[in-house]
């Protein structure tokens, strides 16, 4: 698993840097981006094996939209997305996995912020193994 590449997209650099440190310690190669535009650019240049995406960036739709963009492209739809969120537990929104639904959120897993290192590693490994 060591050679796998992970892209972390979050506007909080303290979060991206700490997650990066934890994941690099597990010998993952990590790229980071601070917003949706940079995220999409790095997604194309770095071709990550997994994306960790914050649901709330500049606007709270940014994470949503980026996940949809990745999952609607046949070339990139196989890349697993792990969503970091405090939203699910706060709003009770029941995210749907079908395209077209207003709450369609095509992600492969959720993690509550702040993330416990062990939980993060376990979840990342699970998703990579599945992919």
């Amino acid at each position, binding site marked *: 698993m060591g050679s796998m590449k992970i892209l972390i997209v979050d506007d909080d650099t303290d979060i991206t*840097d700490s997650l990066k440190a934890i994941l690099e310690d597990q010998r993952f190669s990590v790229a980071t981006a601070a917003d949706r535009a940079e995220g999409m650019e790095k997604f194309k240049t770095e071709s990550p094996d997994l994306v960790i995406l914050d649901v709330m960036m500049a606007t709270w739709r940014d994470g949503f939209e980026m996940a949809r963009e990745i999952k609607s492209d046949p070339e990139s739809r196989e890349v697993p997305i792990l969503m970091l969120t405090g939203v699910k537990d706060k709003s009770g929104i029941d995210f749907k996995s079908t395209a077209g639904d207003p709450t369609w959120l095509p992600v492969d897993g959720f993690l509550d912020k702040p993330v416990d290192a062990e939980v993060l590693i376990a979840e990342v490994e699970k998703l990579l193994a599945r992919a």
Partner: protein
Amino acid sequence: MEPLPQNARLVRRAYWLIRIRWIAITGVILATFVASRILHISVNQIALYCVAAVLTVYNSVFLILLNRAVKPNGERVFSAVHRIVSVQISLDLILLTVLVHFSGGVENPFMVYFVFHMVIASILLPAWESYLQATLAVCLVVFLVLLEHHGVIHHYCLEGLLPKCIIGDKRLIAVMVSVFTTTLFMIVYMTSSISVQLRNQEEAYWQANIQLKQKDKVKDEYVSRVTHDIKGHLAAIQSCLEVVINRTLGPLNERQSDFVGRAQHRTKILATFVRTLLRLTQMRLSDKLEVHEFSLKEAIADAVSSAEARAQSKSIVLTTAIGPSVDRIVGNKFSIEEVIVNILLNAIKYTPEKGAVEISAVDKGDCVQIEVKDTGIGIPADEIPRVFDEFFRGAKARKTERDGTGLGLSIAKQIVERHNGRIWVESTQGKGSTFKLTLPKTPRHC
């Protein structure tokens, strides 16, 4: 926006006036019957029954008009109700004059009944309109007396009740009409001044209440913004601490590890507090509650399974007893499950090891009653009224569990009340507490 208090009252009173008139109609019929058939007083029975019939017709018409005016909610509607009330009082005065004419004119003791209309007018209408109604009443009576006195219309002498007719006695009827006039105007003056004062006070309270609500909203928005920002920073702090705790960047000695551990623990408590406060504030700020039909039985089962691990860690027996007919209700499943988990975790928190916590749900017709009973430390009687207050933590509760936020039960109360339900607690110190809540099966019932 809710209607002005005087408008709301006007509508209530308009219906009340119609109800009173039904009683008055019955009274007219009964009084006519008793006067003519039992007391053998000479009144014009047919005319009086006809007046009762006219009253019945126009009371029905006004009821229909009122129902039409009240349905939609807007400023124009209240002006319509106002007009209806005003016209009703004037018509009442005319009919009362007709009634008095056919039952003895100025000699009829029921002349006093004009007073009632003056009181009602003074309470419901602006002062100048009440004076106008009083003037109308006086004009009607003076007109009636003059016509009867000069023989233009027949005067029904109350033979059988009065020793003699006084309609021919100029001085006496002048005195009676004067007393009548001053009485009406005095009553309008007194009642209006009192009711205007009350109306002003009521409006001042109403305005103050609106201002308080607005201020409360501003406070909630402020708290929401602040806590939201704090939450973001806390998540970053926790994330950074996690790197150190996890020894990602190298080993820590025992003392370093101890202090970073403490920092992490305190940050976690603060994060929980901030998250709870944010949830409570956002709930208070949002006006609507998304509801759908769901199985309460399943929600309880889910809540129990989320609390199970905590119960097991304290060797507490957690039992469930759900009534056979308890199932589908309309509400927000996520919030209701949160309430139940909250109360269950609370019960477990304040119950000593090897204790018992039982959750039960009973079908009560329009609503469901849920109870969570524990064998915990209980709540002192003087703390019971405050347990649902924001930030309140009982003295004993604080000793037992240092890290509570004092917000869990406030959230529970907020959610239950949003569902038009009720939550309360019964407790005996040292023996345990029972938290009870009722939830309507559909949003409006219970």
